[in-house]
């Protein structure tokens, strides 16, 4: 099973991954990171680990690794 890792400290809350996610599994959270952005969070049940967010993120927030 693959795991989606989110580096919240890198996120700038641009929302491009939320727009591109085919399953609408991503959303902006209510926790702010050190840069002052409401970092993105994932709904683990909706996520299908397709890697689209990894490919479109301008700030390398996502990684998809085998557990």
């Amino acid at each position: 099973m693959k795991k989606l890792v989110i580096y919240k400290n890198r996120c700038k809350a641009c929302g491009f991954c939320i727009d591109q996610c085919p399953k609408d599994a991503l959303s902006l959270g209510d926790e702010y990171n050190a840069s002052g952005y409401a970092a993105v969070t994932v709904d683990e049940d909706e996520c299908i680990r397709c890697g689209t967010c990894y490919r479109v993120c301008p700030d390398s927030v996502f990684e998809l690794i085998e557990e």
Partner: protein
Amino acid sequence: MAKDLLTPKLVSELNRFCPGCGHGLIGKIIAQVLEERGVEDRAIQVYAVGCSCLISTVVQADSIQAQHGRAPAVASGVRRARPDAVVYTYQGDGDAAAIGLSESLYAAYRNENYTAIFVNNGVFGMTGGQMAPTTLEGQKTATSIYGRDTSVTGQPFKLAELVAQMPVAYVERCSLTDAKHIAQTKRAIGKAFDNQLAGKGYSFIEILSPCPTNWKMEPVDAYKRLQDIVAGEYKLGVLKDSEEE
């Protein structure tokens, strides 16, 4: 088993670009392409002035900063001094198409064996969103507050079409508008580096990129604008491929 999708080693933890800026994405793609080919240790990136110079905060390859617009001339020198290096220039539209137009065209004219990445976002980003040669007709910027009047300032400038007239290896225009186009951009940049490694000569990749800050748009809307408006003026696709001729 599919491979893990990891952040490229060349990519830094934090970069200095605005939220939603396309530069970070292009930098990540370049790092992926270099690492997939195992040439990241030989890579030398040449950038000049503008937001594009902050690419060094994304791709931590060996770098040289040239004078404004002169990255093609410096890259030509690097290519001759270091024949084993993997050389690429990274320039924005104010840099490559405005002040550095002469260098850009003469490097293409000589068919220098390096890869040119040209990021077109239609404004001078770092200086505050002034009108660039690539600004679309009617687009409002800091120096065209009623929209660009092409009867006075000329038509949007298409550098890729101009470079395609030269005896170069490869010219393609790509876009970052969605996941599909980003995948195509990665293929194009990959082909450009493959051409260089095979010694085929100059490859030029123009990438339509959003500037949410100076377009005064939400990042997601700026990415949509690339497809809805910008790609209507700047046609996507391969403009020249010497292999097919």
